Each structure stands twice: as C-alpha cells, then as structure tokens.
C-alpha cells in the first residue's frame, strides 16, 4: 500500500507459479539430479551400436533400391489382407460405436446404461492395440480375424468416446424443440441430435480408416495377419529391399488416405 503512495517507479513481475523460492529451487535441483542419474543408468554398449550402424546403413541404402518384385505375391497378399481388415474393422467399429456412443452420452442415457457404455469404452481404451491383438491371436489363432477384432475394438474406444462427447456438447435448444413436437425417442435422435453430430462422426470415421490401416500393419507383427506380417517376415529374412518396398507402399497408402479424407472433411460443415 505504501508502494501506491510512493512517487517512484512501480515495478511489476509476473507472480511465480510456486510462491516459496526455496521450494522452487529444491524442485528444480532435484529434477536435474534425478535426470543425470537416470541417464547414467542406461547402459550403452557402444560396440553394439557401432555394429548396428552398419545394419542401419544397409537398411537406409535398401530404400534407394526397394524390391517390389521378388516378394510381390507376399506383398500383395498382405496388402489385400490389410485393406480388407481396415475396411471391415472400420465398418464394424462404426456400427458398434453408434449405439455405444449414444449410451455413453450423459444427456441421453440413464445412469446404468451410461456407466455400462463408458465401461466398454474405458476397457477398449485401456489396452493398446498390440496387447489386444496378442490376446485375440491367443484366442483365435494367427490370421486376419484376430486383427479384425482388435481394430474393431480399438475403433469403439476411439469413435464411441468422441461421439459421446460430441453429443454431450450439442445445442440442447435444438433437441428440446424436436422433443416439444411430440417426437418419439428415435425420431428425436434422428432429427434433434444426428444433424448436429453427423459431420464430426463422418470426419472421425474417415480419420479412423487411416488409423486402422496403420494399425493393421502394426498388429500384423504380433501375428494378426496383414501387411505387418509380411513386413515382419521380410525383416526376419534380412530382406531389407523388400521391407523398404513394403514401407514405401504403407507410406503411400497412408498419405493417400489422409489426403482424401482431408478433402472429404473439408467439404462437410
């Protein structure tokens, strides 16, 4: 208060996040010490790194002369399997996500339904695709069925959650107006809710297609079929030129999917 009366310059500094200067320094110093020990604890076998450089270089070189031909049958088989897996799992995932998403929106569903649907979403989001894939491979054996189920389940966790959140964010006035006309529940969803969330649902579904394609390459590595399995085999045989070809194809497809879904999403409003 005396500052306010003094005629001199009034200084201002942004108040620090942590008030106590001692605590501030202690936290900073502690973090630095921990980090240096943590880095020190990672054992690096420099000889192995040196040897690996050669192998890495061979891999990089392979990109300059990718071999699409030698294993083309395997590659095309894996690709078709992956694309099939992508499309079927996305469609199945969307079909299951819609009812679960509706049930997981607090402004539509009664509490027990809400908790159940949120539970399904939580389970599907808890486990990374690879873990689910390992589980399904153990259950249904190697092959694309395990991949299909894995990606469908992952799609639910992604799409149903975001759909539910979008539904919770709708303009309640529009929905209320439809309810006031004497509409049935399904009509209410169709007229009052669906138009408000449709563009986002379509956008997310398209986005999910390219996620699912990328994931289909990953789950293949643990035996769930698709291009990932082919890629894994190529690595196991040290056929880096074939591996490079596969990776180039994956990159091209992902870029194409992203570009075209971007185009479609831009046209939706």
């Amino acid at each position, binding site marked *: 208060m005396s500052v306010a009366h003094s005629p001199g310059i009034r200084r201002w500094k942004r108040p620090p996040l942590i008030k106590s200067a001692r605590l501030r320094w202690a936290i900073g110093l502690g973090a630095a010490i921990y980090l240096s020990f943590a880095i020190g604890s990672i054992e690096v076998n420099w000889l192995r790194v040196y040897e690996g450089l050669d192998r890495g270089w061979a891999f990089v070189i392979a990109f300059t002369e990718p071999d699409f031909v030698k294993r083309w049958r395997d590659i095309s088989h894996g690709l078709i399997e992956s694309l099939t897996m992508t499309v079927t799992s996305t469609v199945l995932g969307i079909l299951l996500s819609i009812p679960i998403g509706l049930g997981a929106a607090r402004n539509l569903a009664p509490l027990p339904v809400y908790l159940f649907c949120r539970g399904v979403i939580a389970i599907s989001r808890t486990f990374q695709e690879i873990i689910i894939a390992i589980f399904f491979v153990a259950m249904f054996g190697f092959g694309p069925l395990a991949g299909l189920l894995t990606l469908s389940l992952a799609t639910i966790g992604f799409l149903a959650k975001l759909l539910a959140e979008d539904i919770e964010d709708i*303009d309640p*006035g*529009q929905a*209320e*107006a*439809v*309810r*006031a*006309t*004497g*509409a*049935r529940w*399904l*009509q*209410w969803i*169709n*007229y*009052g809710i669906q*138009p*408000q969330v*449709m*563009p986002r649902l379509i956008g997310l579904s398209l986005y999910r297609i390219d996620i699912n394609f990328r994931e289909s390459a990953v789950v293949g590595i643990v035996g769930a079929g698709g291009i990932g399995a082919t890629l894994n085999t190529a690595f196991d045989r040290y056929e880096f030129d074939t591996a490079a070809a596969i990776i180039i194809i994956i990159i091209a497809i992902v870029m194409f999917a992203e570009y075209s879904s971007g185009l479609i999403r831009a046209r939706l409003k």
Partner: protein
Amino acid sequence: MLRLEKLVKRYPTGDEALRGIDLEVPAGQVMALIGPSGAGKSTLIRCINRLVEPSSGRVLLGQEELTSLGAGALRRARRRMGMIFQEYALVERLSVMENVLSGQLGYVGFWKSWLRRFPQSAIDEAFRLLERVGLDTMVDKRADELSGGQRQRVGIARALIQDPEILLVDEPTASLDPKTSRQIMRLICELCEERGLAAIINIHDVALAQMFVQRVVGLQLGKIVYDGPPDGLSAEALTEIYGEEDWSATIRKVEDEETEPPADEDTTSPLPDRERLAGIT
C-alpha cells in the same frame, strides 16, 4: 382451455421457480407473460408441455390432465401444444422444409420420418404455411443460412404444422431487432386469430407486449403478481413485477404507440402481405 392448478416447480438445487401458480387461459386468448429474468417464465411454459417436470400441481389442457400422463400419452398431448423458442431452436443443419416437417413427427412413424417420406397432406400444409410466413422460396435452404427473422418464421411454421390448440412462446423476439420483433409478434398474433389459437407469450419487452396482446400476467419470484388488461399496467404494477424503477418512459412509450398506430408499415407499403413479410433479411 388451459388450466394450471397450484403448479409448483422446485429444482434439485432447492430453488423454487414456481410457487403455486393458478392460471386459466380460455380458448383463443393471446396472453403475455412478463416478469424479470429468473421469475420463472420459461419454467412455467416448459412445465405445461413437461419439457420441465413440475414438482406438484396440475396442468389441464381441455379435459386432459397432462401432469399424470405416461410417456406415450404425453407425446400425443405434446402435438396439441406448439412451441416457439427464443433462439429459434431450429435444427441448423436441416433444411427449412425438414425443420417445418419436424413439427409433424408426433403424427408419423419412425421409418417414414427417417426416410423423409411425409404424407402428402403434411407436405401441402408445410408449403401453405411457408407461403403464409413468406418463406416459400427458401424451402431447401439450410436453416443456418437464414436471418434471425426468417428463422423465427420457420419456427412459427414448425409449431403450426402440429395443428396445435395452444402456442407456448418463449421470448420470440429476444434476439431480433425492434422492427423484426414487431413483425414477428404481429405474425404470431395474426395467426392465433386466424386459427383461433390460444397463446402464452413470454416476453421481456413490456411495450411490445402491450401492443399486441389481450391480457398480461406478471410473474415475480414464481408467483403471479399481476393479471389484467395490457393498459392496466401502471407504474405501481410494473414496480410490483420488476421492482423499483422510473417507469415513466415505458408507460409513455405505450401511449405513443396508441396515438400513432403500429400499423404504419401496412399503410406505407402497398405490397401484398406475403411479400411484406418476406422483405426482411
């Protein structure tokens, strides 16, 4: 026609929005409900069609007691009550026609409405109403492309295609400019007269209400504190409804309207009714 008996609404927070409302609206009467924000006006009209569930008391529409209806019967009863909203509450991504036809949802089955296969009679009526409110050239426009006044006209058409007996109107002019506000109020009141509809109109603009309605009910803290003709709103009555304030400006404004009739637009414009209404953008 519509009767409210000891209607009470208590929100879970403990707020008493309505404290025993007794009100009767005869057929064909257009009534304005005024009162300060938070007086319970919105709650009152939403308790009638049970968008808000009343805590106790009864609502009777004709002979039917709305407060005791099950879900299916309530849906059928809602068809008899058209509602018009403050921010228009059109479904923005649906077309004008779809918005109007959504007023028919209570009459058609799910699959028909899902496929947008409404009965021809409903489509004819929708065209007639859109023509009446001056929007028959905008049938396939998306609702969010329209101006405020146009949107409210769509809202009015949507309420009327229900073929209601009463209109529940919540602040129809709150987001509109003064001229459009008058036109919308006039349109609502004209349509009520044409169709012999009763209406409860929540409205903030006291002067505007006085221009158009036959009866004014003043609500304050969930209780009716004024019920009478529009020109009976003296400074004392307004003070009782809204609290202490210098009301001379509001009251004088009403007298101005009376000396200079609000029909000025009609007399200056030789255009037919529909085009006059469509002229607002």
